């Protein structure tokens, strides 16, 4: 009996010939991640409750200061300090200070720290992002992370795999974000609950690595344990000169078993949004055109890498943010910010009247720099819009791709990007 990519990784990591869905395994971790909200409790649990003095392998742990950093208040400064002290005391090799890292899910891939065939865990739900690089990556809690740091191992239930096959190419303006919002709209926020989302097909060949990271990033919004993509030329090219360790890609066997196979015609997917108050509340853009906006936010681990900012800048070039609306742009990493500066994108944003911030999770989780008030309406390139996610429980959040967000900031209402820019210039990726 064949195995899926997910099963192969879990079998290898647990030292077994093979695993089946439902098996409870103890598996060795290849790489682990924590941040300023999850390291302080994990460090305390590991040292004070579990009695571990050091971490299993300081070269295989990354820590980012991203959620409430630069510190948004005195209590967050304490979390930042605990995170910093723990990282230094444990000798964690991949510690990213404020101003030098950014959002974990952008920082780890761009530094070549999460690689094909590996078992990666992160104390953050969007850790499933890394699966775009052909690994098994999943979000865990703080006690889980404490266990991983103490032992280098963790328990897992081997998930059933759902296979998503995408046919044909996306239409003009339609991005990876629209595709995954459409899929989540079809299967629901619990449509892949605790399962592996293996995503394959011709469509992905034409989608670059940054946009692929958007697709796996949102696997958790369908409840998935992990999202995983095939290794191909795009993966290889992204990792060349970047990968920090040798790696071995995994491939699903032709006779692997899937709980269910979904087929989608990507060419039929329109520009879309998730309406308030759930990521599965999908609607074609045409249905929400004209919705008045108080704020537009371009940021997060979902859609604020350099390619996202390039598309936003192309739309914003020569335009101003509409009166009565505000635009906040938060790059997802320091490297992204440096690149945006080199390419002149920041000048475009500032000239348009956008607020440009340092790299942080910030507004996405209602942390800081863009928290919404009661009744406010926001169009955001982030990943989830449950009640209260970006601030007040009665704020309304729509999710979209960055070009739609940029165009909507120019008009102050939800707008098709072609209303502001006829065509996305060729070569802007």
């Amino acid at each position: 009996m064949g195995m899926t990519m997910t099963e192969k990784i879990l079998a290898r990591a647990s030292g077994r010939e093979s695993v089946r869905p439902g098996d409870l395994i103890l598996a060795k971790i290849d790489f682990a991640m924590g941040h300023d909200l999850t390291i302080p409790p994990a460090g305390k649990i590991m040292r004070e409750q579990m009695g571990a003095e050091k971490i299993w392998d300081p070269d295989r742990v990354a820590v980012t200061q991203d959620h409430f950093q630069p510190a948004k208040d005195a209590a967050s400064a304490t979390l930042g300090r605990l995170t910093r002290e723990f990282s230094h005391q444990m000798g964690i090799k991949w510690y990213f200070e404020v101003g030098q890292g950014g959002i974990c899910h952008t920082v780890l891939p761009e530094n070549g720290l999460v690689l094909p065939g590996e078992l990666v865990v992160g104390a953050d739900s969007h850790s499933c992002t890394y699966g775009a690089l052909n690994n098994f990556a999943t979000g865990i809690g703080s006690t889980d992370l404490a266990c991983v740091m103490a032992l280098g191992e963790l328990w897992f239930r081997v998930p059933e795999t759902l296979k998503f096959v995408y046919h044909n190419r996306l239409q003009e303006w339609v991005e990876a974000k629209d595709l995954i919002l459409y899929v989540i709209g079809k299967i629901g926020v619990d449509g892949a609950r605790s399962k592996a989302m293996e995503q394959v097909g011709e469509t992905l060949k034409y989608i670059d690595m940054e946009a692929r990271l958007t697709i796996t990033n949102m696997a958790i919004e369908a409840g998935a344990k992990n999202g995983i993509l095939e290794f191909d030329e795009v993966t290889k090219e992204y990792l060349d000169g970047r990968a920090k360790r040798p790696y071995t890609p995994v491939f699903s066997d032709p006779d692997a078993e899937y709980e269910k196979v979904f087929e989608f015609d990507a060419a039929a997917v329109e520009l879309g949004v998730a309406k308030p108050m759930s990521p599965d509340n999908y609607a074609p853009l045409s249905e929400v055109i004209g919705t008045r906006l108080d704020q537009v936010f371009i940021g997060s681990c979902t859609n604020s890498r350099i390619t996202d900012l390039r598309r936003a800048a192309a739309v914003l070039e020569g335009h101003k943010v509409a009166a009565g609306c505000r635009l906040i742009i938060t790059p997802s990493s320091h490297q992204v910010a440096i690149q945006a500066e080199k390419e002149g994108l920041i000048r475009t944003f500032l000239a348009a009247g956008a607020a440009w911030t340092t790299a942080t999770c910030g507004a996405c989780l209602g942390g800081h720099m863009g928290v919404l008030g009661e009744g406010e309406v926001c169009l955001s390139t982030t990943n989830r819009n449950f009640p209260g996610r970006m601030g007040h429980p009665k704020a309304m959040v729509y999710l979209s791709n960055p070009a739609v967000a940029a165009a909507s900031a120019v008009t102050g209402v939800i707008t098709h990007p072609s209303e502001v820019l006829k065509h996305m210039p060729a070569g802007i990726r």
Partner: protein
Amino acid sequence: MTLPKVIRGKAWKFGANIDTDQIIPAKYAIYSLDEIELGKHAMEGVPDRDGWAAGVEAGDILVAGSNFGCGSSREIAPIAIRGAGISLVIADSYARIFFRNAINLGYPILQSPQAAEAVVEGDELEVDLEQGIIRDFTRSDEYRCEAFPPFMNELLKMGGLVPWVRERLRERRLAARA
């Protein structure tokens, strides 16, 4: 810390897809090391449930719909519910990270689509954790729970992942000495 065999309490009822931002808004993550403070803000993000935590009596039981605890990985979600005084959570189903976190904390959670469907807020419940049976005195009815894999039951019984890791570390130290 071992689990009680029987838990009694009044039911609080919530719907489907209650995510962790509703269970404990991210801004309270600054209290991640303070269970009592977190407890004061439990379920604060659920629309029209203002001041819910203040009304909870120690021992009360939270009953929810499907996919309870979806969204963020924050372990403060089950900790906040426990901090509010809730003795046990029953749901139609759980999002996986919330589920893991509760088991790892040794905090009892049960999966019972029957109970999630039938229980009404305010019902007096008695839960037999060993037999996996929920008795609803208000409705004079009984509901079954889904069984968890043995390893998860073992973790729950021993008080979560912390004692389990302590034991593994002890074994490793012994092996290193030998």
